[in-house]
């Protein structure tokens, strides 16, 4: 019996040791992942994810230090694409907390300073010095940078209301009557 125990123990130690050596010396580097993830992001460097720019967010994602649901302008589609690529599940992440929003400039408060127009990553704000600025809603992807930079707090993020073209049936309540 002692021989059996000793033999199995020896096998376990040997094989475990081999695995450890392989893990150290034979690992495959996964560099291209970061670039791939960055390509999936909108790229407007808005900072809503908590990182300085999209490249930093992608780097953190690649290392597993960031949540796939953090990119708000990307919406659910981006979160799903990231989750799919990284092989994580989206369960427990509330991606659509606020729903889609769009920037809105209150014309009474706007002083025409051009700060928001210069900052906008997609050139969605039109305006000139001392002229009231306005947002091209189709181009705005709700990164929120303009709202932060406006000195008179004239910009708010408004929810995009569903229209007949965007409305669809909600999910049926799947809680069974038996519960």
């Amino acid at each position, binding site marked *: 019996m002692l021989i059996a125990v000793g033999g199995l123990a020896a096998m376990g130690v040997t094989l475990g040791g081999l695995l450890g050596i392989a893990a150290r010396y034979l690992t495959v580097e996964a560099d291209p992942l970061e670039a791939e993830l960055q390509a999936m992001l909108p*790229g407007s460097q808005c900072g809503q994810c908590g990182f300085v720019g999209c490249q930093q967010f992608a780097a953190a994602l690649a290392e597993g230090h960031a949540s796939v649901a953090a990119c708000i302008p990307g919406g*659910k589609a981006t979160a799903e694409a990231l989750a799919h690529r990284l092989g994580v599940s989206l369960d427990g992440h509330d991606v659509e907390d606020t729903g889609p929003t769009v920037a809105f400039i209150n014309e009474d408060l706007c002083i025409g300073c051009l700060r928001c127009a210069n900052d906008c990553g997609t050139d969605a704000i039109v305006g000139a010095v001392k002229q009231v600025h306005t947002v091209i809603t189709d181009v705005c*992807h709700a990164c929120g940078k303009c709202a932060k930079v406006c000195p008179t707090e004239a910009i708010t993020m408004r929810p995009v209301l569903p229209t*007949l073209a965007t409305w*669809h049936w909600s*999910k*049926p309540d799947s809680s*069974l009557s038996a519960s």
Partner: protein
Amino acid sequence: MKLFPIKGGIHPEYRKELTSEKPIVALPIPSVLTLPVQQHMGAAASTVVQVGERVLKGQMLARGQGFVSAPVHAPTSGTIVAIEDRMAPHPSGLPMRTIVLESDGKDEWAELPAPIADPFTATPQQIRARVAESGIVGLGGATFPSAVKLGLGDKNKLEILLLNGAECEPYLTCDDRLMREYAAEVVDGALIMARALGAPQVIIAVEENKPQAFEAIHNAIRTKLNVSLVAVPVQYPMGAERHLTQAVTGRETPARKLTADVGVVVHNVATARAVHHAVRHGKPLLSRIVTVSGLGVVTPNNIEVPLGTPVEALLAFCGGLTGEIKRLISGGPMMGQPIPDTRVPVVKGTSGVLALTAAEANERPTQPCIRCGTCVSICPCGLVPVEMAALIRNERLEEAAAIGLRDCVSCGSCSYICPSYVPLVHYFNYAKGRLNALDAERRKTEQTKALVAARNARLERVAQAKREAAAAAARARAESQTTDVNKAEA
């Protein structure tokens, strides 16, 4: 004529006897009509009248925009009192641009386009133009602009115009009565449409539960050589255009393609009648026949309704509601949409208004799926509803699409038959909508990336221009300094 079987399908309680023997009655013109600018598939029409303007019956109020669109006409004479957003006849209850017309009681006609004297010597383009300007859309419920559908003969070699007189939805009898009372108009309209399509043969299909309609059409086509009549078995969804095509001709339309790709174009019998009126009398589409039925209505009826009539006027005409109703539906009970409020108007696609009691709706709480497989055996599209619903419940929408979600026509047969009362079609409608929304989000992200790249390029150009200007200025300063030195030395 040899018929072919269609797969699956159900045989619901039809309850057509509530209205099948009631002749069509005309609704008196209501005092106010509300006309949404989009009563069709495609782009919304754009208003061409002003508030306060007096309009005549048949006058165009909104013009179609783009290739797939249709105009809206005044169903009676009167004054435009408002053009504003009102609740659309849509389950969401969201607003739509609506033209509000107050009738003056005179019902005065505008000057209509001249009738096309002989449609069978006119060109197909002339017929299509007339159909387009008359605002005719598919009156079976799909509301696809008929002029566009009549143009399918240009790209495809068509053999058959198949007229859909199946009316397979329970309760609805509007097409049945229309065929009984206006058979000659239907046949004439069909022949005109065949001319516009370039289709040599017309087949009119009527379900076997409408023997009087069959008889009436039979009498109307007696002397016509290229028109035939066929009785199709009573089966839901026999009226779905692909399934009707398969039943009558045996041809199975490939997925993602039109029936025109197998040489057949399907139109509804009411659409044919509308084409007859447009071509022979110059009359645009101003009214439609609606079946008001269900045990929740005091006096069910088949009514010729001016477009824009509020649903509440229709219900009042039928004696009002009998009491507590469970559902108010536009269309049939299988594929119809709930009506959000009785103030919404009747539009071109409203084939029926049903007030269903709780007993008729037979809704029960959902129980766990027992994998009985009945939904699989009755799905007319050969899909696996049980599996798709399970995937959708777990938000695995792309996988559901991979096993055929986009082929689903939402006929409702699976939900109808499920012993556990699982709302299968509701899951599919949710998933289809959600997938579209996700596609839109994806496109938006792509667009944003392109915009960001464009902006960066612009900034780069500006910076480059600055650098060049700075370099040029530096060179100019250097040259002038040299000149100064030269001058000094000289």
